């Protein structure tokens, strides 16, 4: 794993770095948005049902 990352940064570092950044950012954001997004949906539906009453 570590060897693979070093290889990516040594072998055409710009695209290697960008690919790593994408994978790390995307994995993190997916987990974060999965948790926070559920709470956003609950709040949105609560406010909408409140507005209808």
């Amino acid at each position, binding site marked *: 794993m570590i060897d693979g990352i070093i*290889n990516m940064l040594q072998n055409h570092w710009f*695209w290697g770095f960008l690919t790593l950044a994408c994978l790390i950012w*995307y*994995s993190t954001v*997916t987990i974060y*948005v999965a948790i926070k997004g*559920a*709470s956003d949906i609950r709040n949105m539906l609560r406010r909408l049902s409140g507005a209808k009453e």
Partner: protein
Amino acid sequence: MNNFTFVDGSIVGLYLLVTMVAGVMVRKYVGKVEDFLVAGREMNLYLGIASLAATEFGIVTCMYTAQNGFDKGFAGAIPGVLTFLAMFLVGYTGFCVKPLRDSGVITIPELFEKKFGPRIRWASGVVIVLGGLLNMGVFLRTGGDFLVNISGMNPDYLEEMMTLLLIGVAVYTILGGMLSVLVTDYLQFIMMSTGMIVVTFLILDQVGWSTLVNTVQTHHGEGGFNPLKNKTMGWSYVIFNALLNTAAVLTWQTQISRVLAAKDTATGRKVYTGTSFFFVARFLIPGIWGIAALAVLTPDQIDGNSLLAMPKMLGLIVPAGLMGLLVAAMLAADMSTDSSYMLTWGSVIYNDIMAPFRKSKWPEKKGLLWNRAIIAVIGVFLLIYGLWYKLEGDLWTYLGITGTIYLSSMSVLLIACCYWKRANSWGAGAAIVFGALLPIATLTLQKIGPYTDWFKKNDTVCGVAVYVIVALAMIIGSLLKPQFQKGVRTF
């Protein structure tokens, strides 16, 4: 079938069931047209990020970005980097999106009416809907082609499979509008992202970074890493894509609708800055899949079709079990795009094209009924035009013309509307006419006349020229219109 087993089918079936149920369940929260079109403007940051990312990544996107990787190497991901920069800067500075969201409008043409009058609003609505619907018209078949190639399914069932999928998407979009779109986009974002990340790690593990780099070096040389040294790209390609992607960030209705549905302007801007880096992943991750296809497949397997190389490669290397996740991920990507596109183009038809027919405010029930009927008609159009009608000619050209017709004029109109006091309806009208005619003229000159080769070779130069000419049309047209102040004509 390739590696598609009963387990994979169960994963896909379960995913589809959960999405449909969630999409239909939120219909009870829709009470007004504003709830239906912009979710009552109650969308918060993380839901906005999930929705924008899911909407802007469909199977058709995956196919073209992978083809870019196959044909241009890593340099093919440059449009993604440019979109990231444009979206981040627009979100960070609030350029155009702040005045747009502050104005409280539902669509961009509604803002244009305040500056340019009702005729320009109507004309803008027509251009947006024409460009958007024709652009979307090819999504279903391309999505079907991907699924057939990846799963090894019998192509004879493509039409039936995609028809059922479209009906399912249309049902929850018609019932719940933007609320259903947001909730299903959230589920689809999680499914799509999980599938994309897992498959990319699998490719990096099985093919290896060194093999990917060496493949690009062998086939494309230095041009596979640097767009300025790539003979099919160069400066004009970079500048054209910078203009195109900035225009899309500012005016593409499915993107801007997330800003308009946000609970306030600050949240809308944060949705843009927070989602911006996704656009690098949107190009780079499928681009790597395309490069892997170039590395793994033989010329016989590719059979001269670089568009279908990536799904063929995935069909060979993705194992059973993971294949279900991948197909569900790609279905998620396609469903979120279809639902959002149907809703947003429908919103422009109702809000802007039908505006002259609503002399007084319609009751909410009548408005909702019309919106739902419009989405149903769009669904029928997609079915007939996009699936059962086979498109003649090349798809890239088709997408290019439909996109540029809309983006060049609408972006110029929006910037002028927000920041140029002297801009007026003459300039706006001229920009719309030139924005629509020039791309068609360019494409015609690529097919007929004495300079076809020059126009084909310099298509991105022509693309840049369209944006410059449309901007000039706005400036000259606006300056030519006489100004009136307190009943006195001034020049």
